[in-house]
């Protein structure tokens, strides 16, 4: 019974972790600029993320170590030092983008400029983490996160041309504006394969005290949760394609993205978009902050845990505190949240090799995983992601410069 509850919750949480500011931005852009043509990037990213999330959970359940913990221990500080610094900076940017997303959602409903909301939002995120336990955070944000299903409802209500949607699931070459096309494709991959997802998920498995008997539960959560999250992102992409793409509205600003629900829900569309965006970004902001604190505490071997009082793990708690307020500064200084998000998604794609290489090494360690180590198929997937990520690492930043504006 306990496992069934955990399964349901795990699915909800992973939906929350999947769908965030990056998915909203990239799906809206992809749909508005290329209608359904980029669905393949979302499908590809989803298949890859299912495998990687399953591995992070299986690794934690069997070895009883979260990922950053095991990377430092078995691959050494020398190996981990540079990736750790780069991933920490990436976390700060993602956190800034999520705080920007919440702030922009507030701008949509109040009309007051987003940069004014950055610090109050940061305070809210911080208070949430400072005062509550891991399960409270998991459960409350994931239940509220169901509001993002409005994108799926809207997509169905528009009766999109299914043949064209299905055709989009197969990769095709752009007919125009290739730099923008590939930039959005890379950003879509980066938005789904966000590094924080894996560190958060594997540390969460330790917080929830998973053991080897959770391997099956973990597999189900990874598969159902990630597919469900992808369905919401697909919904957003389709709605954007139907509503914005057909009218030639390009998304240069979240304000335009917010129009996408107004045709399916004439009265509520705008507010619904703001609510969905605010809640999805809040859930993600909590996960990103925790992921950063987990990774730092584990890297240095400090005592950590969201269930401990801040006075019991001062360093852990102060890492997320500093991260939240630092990232919020980016938004408070008026950096455009959408531009920050899209740039960050390209960076996500660029840093992917740092995330995938340790998978390849650790998931084959018999001493740690015994019978649960990777089979040939999972390894083939990791090798594929690693090769793909090496290509992405090279092309994503130039593409962000060429196609990002």
């Amino acid at each position, binding site marked *: 019974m306990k496992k069934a509850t955990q399964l349901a919750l795990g699915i909800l949480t992973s939906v929350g972790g999947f769908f965030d500011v990056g998915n909203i931005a990239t799906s809206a852009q992809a749909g508005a600029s290329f209608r359904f043509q980029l669905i393949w990037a979302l499908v590809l990213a989803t298949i890859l993320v299912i495998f990687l999330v399953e591995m992070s959970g299986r690794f934690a359940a069997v070895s009883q170590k979260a990922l950053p913990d095991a990377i430092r221990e078995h691959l050494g500080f020398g190996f981990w030092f540079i990736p750790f610094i780069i991933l920490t900076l990436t976390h700060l940017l993602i956190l800034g983008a999520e705080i920007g997303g919440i702030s922009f959602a507030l701008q949509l409903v109040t009309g007051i400029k987003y940069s004014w909301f950055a610090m109050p939002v940061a305070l809210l995120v911080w208070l949430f983490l400072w005062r509550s336990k891991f399960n409270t955070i998991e459960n409350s944000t994931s239940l509220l996160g169901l509001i993002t299903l409005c994108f799926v409802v809207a997509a169905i209500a528009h009766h999109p041309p299914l043949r064209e949607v299905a055709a989009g699931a197969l990769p095709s070459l752009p007919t125009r504006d290739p730099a923008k096309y590939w930039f959005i494709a890379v950003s879509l991959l980066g938005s789904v394969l966000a590094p924080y997802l894996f560190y958060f998920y594997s540390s969460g498995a330790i917080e929830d005290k998973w053991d080897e008997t959770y391997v099956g539960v973990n597999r189900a959560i990874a598969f159902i949760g990630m597919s469900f999250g992808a369905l919401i992102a697909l919904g957003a992409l389709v709605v954007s394609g139907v509503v914005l793409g057909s009218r030639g509205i390009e998304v240069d600003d979240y304000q335009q993205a917010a129009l996408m629900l107004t045709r399916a829900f004439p009265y509520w569309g705008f507010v619904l978009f703001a609510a969905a965006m605010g809640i999805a970004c809040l859930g993600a902001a909590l996960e990103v902050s925790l992921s950063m604190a987990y990774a730092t505490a584990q890297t240095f*071997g400090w005592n950590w845990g969201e269930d401990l009082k801040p006075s019991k793990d001062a360093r852990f708690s102060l890492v997320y505190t500093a991260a939240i307020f630092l990232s919020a500064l980016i938004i408070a200084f008026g950096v455009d949240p959408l531009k920050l998000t899209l740039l960050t998604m390209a960076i996500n794609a660029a840093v992917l090799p740092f995330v995938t290489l340790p998978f390849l090494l650790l998931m084959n360690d018999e001493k740690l995983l015994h019978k649960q180590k990777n089979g040939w198929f999972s390894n083939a997937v990791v090798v594929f992601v690693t090769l793909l990520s090496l290509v992405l690492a090279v092309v994503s930043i130039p593409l962000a410069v060429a196609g990002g504006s």
Partner: protein
Amino acid sequence: MALHQFDLIRDILDKQLVDKDEKQMGRIDGVVIELRDGQPPRVDHFELGFTVLAKRVYPRAAAWTRRGARQHVPWDEVHEVTQHHVKLDVDAEKTPAFDWERWLRKHIVSKLPGGKEKDE
């Protein structure tokens, strides 16, 4: 499960250190072995601290860090070595490994709402 044989670099260096109550108290940032005439070398002590880490990444960086930030853990304090940690027979709160933790607790965390130890 206590291990009896392990790889010094793979399994001991960078391993999690815990105190007698299994509270995490840092990682083994350095292992110092002693070479002895006619006998196998033996592990003399572990080292902890940012200075040790800095030295591993960039030797000159160690000079920039605070002197004395290096903590020695003699082998006598080691209670057990398992797959997951090296357990010491000490109270982490009373060791230099918790210097920062204690300082931050006293000067920052306790001044924030809900940060006092009695707020349990």
